[in-house]
């Protein structure tokens, strides 16, 4: 067993995650290796020191406050309508019947659901013919000046006692346009918001692409600003193209910023897109002296399900000098 593997196993053993045969192997190594013996002592010291920040029970006031706030929020939720509950019940029943080849039961559940929905729509149509309906849109169009913008949400409703008058507080969406340079802080802030919040992949891609280009050009790519946003996109965006752009934007900082390096390592280990994992390998190659990087490369070289990626990792590792 080499010392690097021993260091990893020391951590696993400290947390009871090492199988018995590996524990035995580790003990044999520790009996002869002073350096690893010290490593184990350091790990034990860490566990001891960490106890200076103990996990404490939340105090009663915090529990009570949290509970009251939750109850108020639950009370404010609109009640679930009967057909929504029925649909959910049908879904639950369908899921539990999935492994049971009882087609008749499944047909019965589906038939019952369809029938209930059909009845609901008939009832809705009947009500529509007999009662004038007033949609929220109609009310909002009458009560709100269009120049105020579309109603985003209702924040409170209060009725004056013994009166027909009500006060409704609401928030509106007002479309706006802004022009400016990529160096403008407001433009940057909007781009950062777009990278996280936009529902359109095109908008997220454009914003991440622009932010990445700023980082590659070295234009104020601060750790707690754009760099952080790119790391979030790399870790969490659903679209591989957006994640690719984020990866490329972070490349210049992989040597100097350990957080960027960690984000690259995570991408290498867990990104579902093989192109991104391959590019992460080439970006990490200049920092292959980092023990964590080598460990991850080793892991990928043996366990990635893509053979090209396993090969690329092995090639990088083979270029690492035997002694650092």
């Amino acid at each position, binding site marked *: 067993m080499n010392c690097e593997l021993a260091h990893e196993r020391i951590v696993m053993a400290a947390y009871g995650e090492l199988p018995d045969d590996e524990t035995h192997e580790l003990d044999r190594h520790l009996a002869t290796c002073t350096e690893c013996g010290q490593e184990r002592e350091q790990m034990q010291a860490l566990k001891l020191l960490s106890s200076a920040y103990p996990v404490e*029970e939340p105090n009663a006031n915090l529990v009570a406050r949290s509970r009251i706030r939750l109850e108020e929020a639950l009370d404010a939720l609109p009640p679930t309508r009967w057909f929504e509950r029925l649909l*959910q019940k049908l879904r*639950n029943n369908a899921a539990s019947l999935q492994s049971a080849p009882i087609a008749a039961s499944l047909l019965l559940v589906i038939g019952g659901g369809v029938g209930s929905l059909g009845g609901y729509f008939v009832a809705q149509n009947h009500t529509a013919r007999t009662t004038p309906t007033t949609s929220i849109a109609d009310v909002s169009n009458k009560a709100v000046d269009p120049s105020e913008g579309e109603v985003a949400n209702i924040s409170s409703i209060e009725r004056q006692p013994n009166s027909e008058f009500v006060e409704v507080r609401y928030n509106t969406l007002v479309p706006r346009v802004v022009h400016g340079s990529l160096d403008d802080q407001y433009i940057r802030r909007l781009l950062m918001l777009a990278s996280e919040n936009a529902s359109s992949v095109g908008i997220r891609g454009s914003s991440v692409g622009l932010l990445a280009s700023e980082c590659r050009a070295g234009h104020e790519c601060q750790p707690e600003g754009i760099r952080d946003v790119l790391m979030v996109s790399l870790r969490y965006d659903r679209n591989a193209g957006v994640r690719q752009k984020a990866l490329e934007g972070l490349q210049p900082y992989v040597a100097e910023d350990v957080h960027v390096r960690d984000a690259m390592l995570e991408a290498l280990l867990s990104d579902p897109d093989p192109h991104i994992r391959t590019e992460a390998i080439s970006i990490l190659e200049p920092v292959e002296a980092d023990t964590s990087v080598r460990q991850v490369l080793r892991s990928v070289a043996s366990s990635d399900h893509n053979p090209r990626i396993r090969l690329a990792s092995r090639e990088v590792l083979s270029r690492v000098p035997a002694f650092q």
Partner: protein
Amino acid sequence: MAATRAMEKPDRAQELMQARAPEMELIRQAQAGSRVAFDSLVRQYEQQVLRLALHLTGSESDAEDIYQEAFLKAYRYIGNFRFECSFYTWIYRIVTNLCLDQLRRRKTRREDQAVVVDHSGDEIDILSSVSDERSFSNPARELDRKVLGIRIQEALGKLTPRERTVFELKHYQGLRLRTIGEMLNTTEETAKNTLFRATKKLRSQLAGLRK
């Protein structure tokens, strides 16, 4: 007389009945829309949720927010719970990911780790909160322990959000690496590597304290 007392407090009687119901039945009732059943589930897990959120974020206010979001999410999506794992694992996964999001959003305060934030958002200087009434014990040792606790928090704050979360779940909450991987939607191997990096960083951060 006993019947009258029971009638005067029907909610209390219902609470007692709910507390004894098996958890699966509670979940089914909550899925069917029973608020009482959902409240019982909240009471069963609220301590664990707050304990984890409080220790991970170090802030009562953040812990309260995470509690709120976690249980609202649970309420909204309890219909999707399929009994493929325990409810404990399910809610813990929600809380863990909310804590991870919170750690990412928050700005670290490296310049003053002696400050924590209470529920109203006010800052408390830990060092000034050492009570004079404790002078009968060893005040120097008490202060040392508090300072050490602050240094630990500072070192934990320098980990990435994911490292911090994995370390918390493994070291402080005692979960298996496989469970941690499932909660963070990754593999056991990734969780292991993350733990290894976290312990390595912490050891180098805290090296000076071991003398």
